[in-house]
Structures are given as structure tokens and as C-alpha cells.
């Protein structure tokens, strides 16, 4: 195995700037999470075995996510989910899922490095996102568990709403766009954070 310290997450270079945000906005990269893309017929015979592996049924309501404590399962499309799991669990989980699926038509793909994850929280979080995202993240419109794939300024993004007060979000952004995303975020928060 390579020295895990040698790994580099897409926002490694931005950690200081993200850390410097304070007050109404807090942002932190959660690097190296396991992320698996799952394609499956949620009405088919493999759905139950998969649910067993995950400890939770695949969410079938569009634009929602469910968590099982260990896993978080994000609805990406009518037959597509993104499974977030603890760092390092990709190989075992892939095997478990593929076993559960058997010969059913499905696809499991390791996409752990395809996107990086940023936790954005604080009372200014919704306003910050509103500067670049057209989704209504008001708790009335996007309750806890909402999960939208959309655009934030010039990048695609997945937004998971983690509380009922629009102050805690999980953001997933394509790795090659991550630095742009961070630059955008830091610039957007100028009015929302106190000078350090």
C-alpha cells in the first residue's frame, strides 16, 4: 500500500482559506470518502438484497437521500444512486453490492475520487449558496434529506440538505472543478464572514 499520507485530496491546497472562513460560514473538505455509483432497477429483485447490504432501502423519491448511520444513499436518478461510505470501504462494499445484485442488470462503479465532498454550515450557508444556485433551499422547499444535483455558478454540484434550518449542507463537486468551486466559495463569502 502506498503511504496514505501521500494521498492528495482535490482541495488540499485550499484548506487554509476554507478554514479561515468564520462567523456565518464554515466550510471543510471531507476528503477520501468512499463513493459508489449504483445503477439498478429499484423495483427489481436486487433491490432488497442491496437494501440489506446498505442497511437502508434505496430512496426512490426524486431528489432525496437517506442515511443508515454508516452509509448515506443519494438519489441521482430514477435508477441511479450515489452511496457515500466511510473512507477505505470501497473494495469490500463493491464486492458486497455486486454479490447482492447477482446477475441482475445493474452497475456499481467506484467514483470515490470523481467528486470531493465539502461540508458547508453556518447561518449564512443558504445565502451563500443562493449566490450561485437557483434551487430554493429554504427549509420549506428543501427539507432535511433533500438532495439536488444542480449548478452552482459554473460548476455542477450535488447538494445534500442535512438539517431543517438550512444551516448544514454537504456539497459534492467534480474534482477537477473543486479549486474553482473553492475560489468561488471564498469569494462569495466575503460579505458573510468577519475579517479574520
Amino acid at each position, binding site marked *: 500500500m502506498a503511504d496514505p499520507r501521500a494521498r492528495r*485530496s482535490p482541495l488540499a491546497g485550499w484548506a487554509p482559506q476554507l478554514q479561515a472562513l468564520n462567523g456565518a460560514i464554515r466550510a471543510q473538505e471531507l476528503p477520501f470518502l468512499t463513493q459508489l455509483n449504483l445503477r439498478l432497477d429499484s423495483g427489481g429483485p436486487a433491490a432488497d438484497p442491496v437494501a440489506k447490504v446498505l442497511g437502508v432501502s434505496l430512496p426512490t423519491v426524486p431528489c432525496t437521500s437517506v442515511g443508515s448511520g454508516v452509509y448515506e444513499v443519494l438519489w441521482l436518478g430514477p435508477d441511479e444512486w450515489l452511496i457515500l461510505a466511510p473512507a477505505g470501504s470501497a473494495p469490500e462494499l463493491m464486492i458486497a453490492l455486486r454479490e447482492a445484485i447477482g446477475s441482475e442488470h*445493474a452497475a456499481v*462503479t467506484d467514483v470515490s*475520487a470523481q467528486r470531493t465532498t465539502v461540508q458547508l454550515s453556518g447561518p449564512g450557508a443558504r445565502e451563500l449558496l443562493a449566490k450561485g444556485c437557483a434551487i430554493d433551499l429554504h427549509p420549506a422547499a428543501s427539507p432535511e434529506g433533500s438532495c439536488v444535483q444542480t449548478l452552482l455558478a*459554473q460548476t455542477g454540484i450535488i447538494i445534500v440538505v442535512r438539517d431543517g434550518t438550512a444551516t448544514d449542507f454537504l456539497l459534492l463537486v467534480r474534482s477537477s472543478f473543486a*479549486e474553482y468551486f473553492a475560489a468561488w466559495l471564498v469569494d*462569495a463569502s466575503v460579505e458573510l464572514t468577519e475579517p479574520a
Partner: protein
Amino acid sequence: MTRVAAGGRIDRNTELAFTFDGKAYRGYAGDTLASALLANGVHQVATSICYGRPRGIMAAGVEDANALVQIETPFPEPMLTATTVELYDGLVARGLQGQGRLADLPDQARYDAMHEHCDVLVVGAGPSGLMSALTAARAGARVVLLDDQPELGGSLLASRNQLAEWVSAVTSELNSLATVRVLRRTTAFGYYDDGFVLALEKRTDHLGAAAPPAAARQRIWRIRARQVILATGAHERPVVFADNDRPGIMLAGAGRAYLNRYGVLGGNRVVVFTTNDSAYTAALDLADAGAAVTVVDARTEIPQHPAAECARRGVALKAGHVVTGTSGNGRVTGAHIAPYADGKAGARQGIGCDLLLVSGGWNPTVHLFSQARGKLRYDESLGAFVPGSSVKAVRVAGSAAGVFTLSGCLSGAADAAVAALQELGLSSAPPALPSLDAEPETTPGLVLWAVPDKGDESGPCRRFVDFQRDSTVADILRATGAGLTSVEHVKRYTTIGTAHDQGKTSGMIASGIMAEALSTDKHQVEVASLGTTTFRPPYASVAFAALAGRDRGEIFDPVRVTEIHPWHLEHGAVFENVGQWKRPRYYPQRSAAGSIEDIDTAVLRECRTTRESVGMMDGSTLGKINVQGSDAGEFLDRLYTNLMSTLKPGFIRYGAMCGMDGMIIDDGTVARVSDTEFVLTTTTGNAAMILDWMEEFAQTEWPELRVNLTSVTEQWVTIALVGPRSRDVLASVAAELDLSNEAFGFMTWRDASVAGIEARICRISFSGELAYELNVNAWDGLALWEALIEAGKPYGITPYGTETMHVLRAEKGYPIIGQDTDGTVTPQDLGMGWVVSKKKLDFIGKRSFSRAENQRPDRKQLVGLLPVDRTVLLDEGAQVLATADLSQLPVPMLGHVTSSYRSAALDGTFALALVRAGRERIGQRLHAWQDGELVSVTVTDPVLYDKEGARRDG
């Protein structure tokens, strides 16, 4: 000074200093530049564009298009109207003559944008808008209320504190509700589809130099509203008469606003010229403030109430009279009045005055309604267009709907809100209406566009319709005389309505004058049928920078980078933009003396090292798509020109894709992972397009195929390790892997641990050399890169960029899609007939190959070109000619040079070109023409290096 002693909404405790046209003045917080200038007795603000006439302040709001100023401090900004500039300390401005000046200084101000969502958007916070917003807010709806003024109240602000308590109570109630957002200084300027309203908030302009630098100066609000209530009020309309443009002539409502809101009495001897009741309020207010007022009413009958009120104050009344002209040198000094009957003015008589207020009635502010595709209806009695149809989710309330009584506005606005709430499924109890003094019965006004003029229209007396464009009644008459019968033609012929005004004050009048001009005894042309010119966004002008927002500089467009980017930066790579990606183009070396290699030297060095020993390249930007499913092979067969279903797991095949038209659109490799899984690559620039293209077929054409596509472009870092010593380098870090040709052959892949990192290694080559492409989880990419650099040191390994990659592949005659092709090139044209399956019945594009044009023997084909003088580098884009005779233009062209390089391996320059019937011409001498110079070239096979392919196995 013309500031009255007390009253108005200005803050007399906060004095502000400003400079206009080089002179220092003082005003108060709450002033606009216009009101402050008037308070200082400055009436002439600007000069007219064509005729150089002095021009003043005509209105008190956005509809003024006359008092054009250039702001100089804190930052130059052209072409604002003094009526929309809030006064701040240190303001420096000057009047303009029709054109503004852009400053060649970087604008350091910040701008941003904000998305907002609401149940009910209310535009305009006059009594109507306040009532609508309050009704909606009390029902619990999410409400946005916006108004372009710094204070809520709308036209009430121009009154003598009418409903002031109600306004402040409503304001504080709205401000206190979490469900309500009140935006002041915010102009809704565009109504787009589905309740999408764009608004501009001026956040710091009124602070001048005190504006916090971090704060966005202006913000675009992108508001998505489920229901919209337009309570935008009405604009007063002037009447046109000769010399109506002098400073000191303004709209009656404006005269009243300056007095009541800003505490400025615009003149002491005031003539009020009106055609309707509304201007009497102004006349009475100004008289009460001490002005000597004469009302000139075009109507013969003056309604009882205003007449009585005038009499009470000693306001002189001239019924059945009109103003036919004015005198003055600069500011107005007199009005010419004349009896008016049967559309004709009689003998004129002068009245001295220093302020002439005009009212020709009111035009409901229907711009946004019209942008929302609402149809307008001409209201004969108003002489104006009013909303005439219903538009889904849009309601118009108050004066904007043609309602001009306060009580009517309030109750109508509450009704509009109730109706909107009903659509939203919210029940509501409309708030009680504030108690009002009884409003006098109004009598209809007289619709009068322009006072007839006996003078010479081309002479100095001009009846101005559009002040900013200096367009006159004569211009309209000239246009209709030329045969123009459409308001749109007259607009363009006269330029009326094409300046800031955008028809707010001039449009209606122009239509009216046109109708009269086109009417004959036999044929009456109705204003209703002429209509107005089209209302278009923006309702009021918006700075370009505000629209650009924060999408500038560093974050104008995403810069996409790979995980190895920090290393490239550290090692002095020169980058190339490839789409949004930054890719190293080459890595110039710095000599001990500090000089930096030029591109040619660096690339020759990189090429030589790679061909002779080993080089490596960051290829992570390649698009990568994971394809899974039992029909994956069949699916790929339909998309690629060659067969993919026959590929065995563990093997790799080069593949090309064509569009429906048979033209090559992309190429790459396809690796089979298992029976049901493939991973394919696309070119960097086409990654997204190709995934979309494949998804479209998978989902829409062949949904029966069991196949799933997932982008894994960024999952993998891809490193090409290239050159005869690549095997040695790899062997030193992948000890467990048997790298012999027998165990690990060309076009196969293996999973192995490389420098302790799990990698998928593909034996493919884009250079003709022995080469490996290593794919690892992107997080490990940098570590692997560094390990390989380290392992390659004994062999003098070099990193190389896109330029070297291009040279190496071109020496081998491998085309780059998009460089050696341009959307008009088939695989056959590229000499790649071998990639087109003969076995498959069909694949995308196949049918197009048999079209007449594709069968022509003289199609352009990819060939190599060797300059006769091998030190001459051809220009990419040079044209290929058969003849050296340039005496006759046009010169027939055979094709063009697509790629051209200096080659270390070929010891000279070479090029690839698309040439008509190129393959037949191999061996021929042709000419390349570039920027006037002819270069002799020999046509060759495109493969110039290692034709036998001896090097790829090392």
C-alpha cells in the same frame, strides 16, 4: 437657495458636500443629485445632443431622460440621470451632452447576484404595492417587495405626508416578518418566463466613498416568483409645445415631489399647464408653499373642486388655454399662453414664470406587464395604454392598472393579493384599509399630445418629443410624410424612444401625434390601432458590470486541473487551455545561468528524451466512461465504427466514432474489463459531449439495451510512461508484474501495484514507442507521478506536455480529432479505413459513407508533407496548392496544413495536411502558401517514423 424652511423627507441634520460642473454645493441626506441641484438653484444640468440646447430636470424619477450626468467620483460612470443618483458626500458629477465617457480604469467595485424564491413578488411599494404585500404577508406567504426608491411609499412620498403613519406601520410590520424580504433601491428591470424577474439593487452607491469595499456595490436579484403583483404606478406624461425643453420646465408631479419630498420649491412664479385634474394638487401645494401660481388648463370646464381650491388660494386659472411656447435664455422666464378651441390655439400672450409645470395625463407603467407578454389596451379617456389581458400568475394593481384614486388603488391591490393567494391555496383576510379623506370626484382629462404650432418647425422653435434624442414633432411629421405608417418605423426614423426614456414619456405622445398626422378627413387613424413600440428589458438601464456579477477574473470560467497540477506548477510548466482544462504544454528547463529554454528547444529535448529513453505525460484530462451491462458490447458496436463486442476481457482496442453524417467526431481506446464492463476514453475536449451523445442513444433510441454509463474522468489519474526505457522504469516500481511482451502484450491491460499504489496499466501507445498508461485513483496520482519521476531518474526521464505529445503522434501519422479534422473528414479520409468495420450491418454514420459526396475520389485525405527545405516550418493553416502561379485570383486550393512540427527523430520539419486526392499525390511536389510565401513540399504517407511499428514492443 430654493430649499423651503421646513418639511420634506430629507435629513436636514446631515449636510453633504458635492461638486457639479466644477462648482461646490451642499445638499442633505435624502436628496437626489437633481433635488440638490434644484435646491441650489441649478436648473440647467445638461446640453442636448444634436442642437446643444440647455437641458434641465424634467421629472423626479427614472422617467427623466434629460438631466444626464457623468459621475466622476468615487468612480467614473457615464449617463446617469440626476434624478436617480442619490446624493452622497463627496459626489463629483458633471452634465453631459448626450454621450458619456467610459474611464479606462479598472473598476474595483464588487458586484454579485442572488437567487431568491417567493410565493408573491410585489414590484413597487407605493400604496398599492404596500397593500398587496401586507395582504400576502399576513396570509403567511413568502413575499418579496421591492421598490427602486430608498424609502417605501411610492407616490405618497411626494404628497404632504398622506398616509405617512400607515406607510411606516406597514413598513415596520413587513420588516419584522421573517417570511418577507423588502428590497429598497431595487429596480425590477426584466420580466422573463415563468415568474422570473430580474432586479438590480443599488447597495452602496448612496454611500459614496464611505461604501465598505467588501460589500457588493450592486446586486442582481434573480427572483423566481409563483405569483407576481405589479404595482409599478404611472408616469406622468407631458404635453408637447414649442420650446418645451427649457430648464425650469418639468412634470407637474415632479414639481410637487421636489417640494413635498425634498423640500425644494422649484420656482416662485409658477405656471401649471394641465389637461387633467391631477396637476391641481401640485398647483395647490406649490401655492401653499408660497409660490405665485397660474394654472393653464386646456379644458374649457374646470371641475368644481380644484377650481374652488384655487380660488381659495388666489391661484389664477386660465381655462381653455394652452401653453404654445416659452421664452428664456437658459432657464424658462416665460410661458406663451393662448386660448385653445377646436384643436387650434389662438393669439398668444406671455406670462412671466420661473417654473413651468406640465401634465398631459398619466401613462400606467406597464413595461413589466408587457414584457410578461401581457397585451395592452388603449384607454381613450386616459389617452394611454393599460393592461388589456390577463397573464398567468401576473396581476397589475393600482395606477399601473389605470386606477388613479388612492382608495381604488388600495382596495384593488388588496384584491389582487387575495386572488394571488387563492392561486397559491392560501386563505387570507385582507387587512383593513386605512381611513382616507374623501377624494374629490375626478373629471376626465383632455387628451392632448402636442399643442399646435404655427411656427417654423425647422427653426429655433422646436417641439421636443424625445429630449435625449433631440427628436421633435417635425421629425414625426417628416417620417409620416415619407410614407411611414408604423410606430416602429417612426421610432427608427426619428430615434424617438431609443434613449433612456425607452418610450416612458415620449412613446405615447409619439403614437398620438402620428395618429393625428396620418388621419385624413376620410380616414381616421386610431391610436389604439397604432399601438406602442415594444417594451423590452431592461426597464431601466443596468451597468454591464452588474450583469457580469462575480463571474470575472479568476472565477470567470472554471479552471479545471488534474491532481498532478501542483507538480506541474512547481516544475515551471507552460500551460495550454484545452477547453476548461489547463494542460502542461511543455516544461522549459532553467539553465544554471537562469535562462529559460524556448518552446522549440524544450520540445525537441522532450521528444528526443522520450524517443531515446523515457518520458511521461499527465493524460488525466482524457474523458473516461465506464460502460456496464450485458449489452455493453452491442451498444458500443452501434456507436463505434469498429467492432467492440469481440474484444476479450483484458484487451484494448482503438476506436473511432462518427456523427450521423459520417464525419469523425472522436476517438480513443476501449478496454474490456469483464464480459459486462468496458472503460473507454474520449479526447479531452469532447468528454462531456461524447457521454451526452452515448446517453442519448442509450436512453432514447435503444432503451431495450441493458447498458449503464458512468463518467469516471476524474476518478482516474492517467499517466503515460513512454519510451524504450519505460519498461525498465516500470519494472523498478512494479516488481511483481511480468512486463515481458509475452506476458503483457500490446493493447492489453493488467492490474498491479505500482510503487505501492493499485494501478490499472494499459499497454497502449500514442507515440509509437513502447509505452504504458497507468491509471490510479486520482488521490494517488501525484504520489505515483512523483514515484515514477524518481524511478526514471537513472534514465533521464522527462515530463512532457501536449506539444511533445503532438509531435510524437504526428511523426507516426496519428491524427488529432479537431486539429487534423474539422467536422468534414471521414475515417477513410484519414486513411483509417481499417477502423471501419465491414462486418457490422450498421453503426452510427455508416449510411452516410455511401452518399455521392463521400464516394468522390478527390476527397481531401490526410497525408504527410515534407518541406523540400527541411529547416522551414510550415504554418499550421498554410494552404496547399498545385501551382506556384499566383497571378490569377482566386488560386485553386487543394487543402491545408493541419499539423506542423520540428522533429528530432526526423531531423527536420514535417507536417500533416488534408489534401484533395492526397493519397494519389504521394511523391508529388506541391506548394504550401502561407502569408504570401510559397514553400515547396513533397507529399508523403502520413506515417513518417517507424513505419513497421518496430518500436512499440520496446
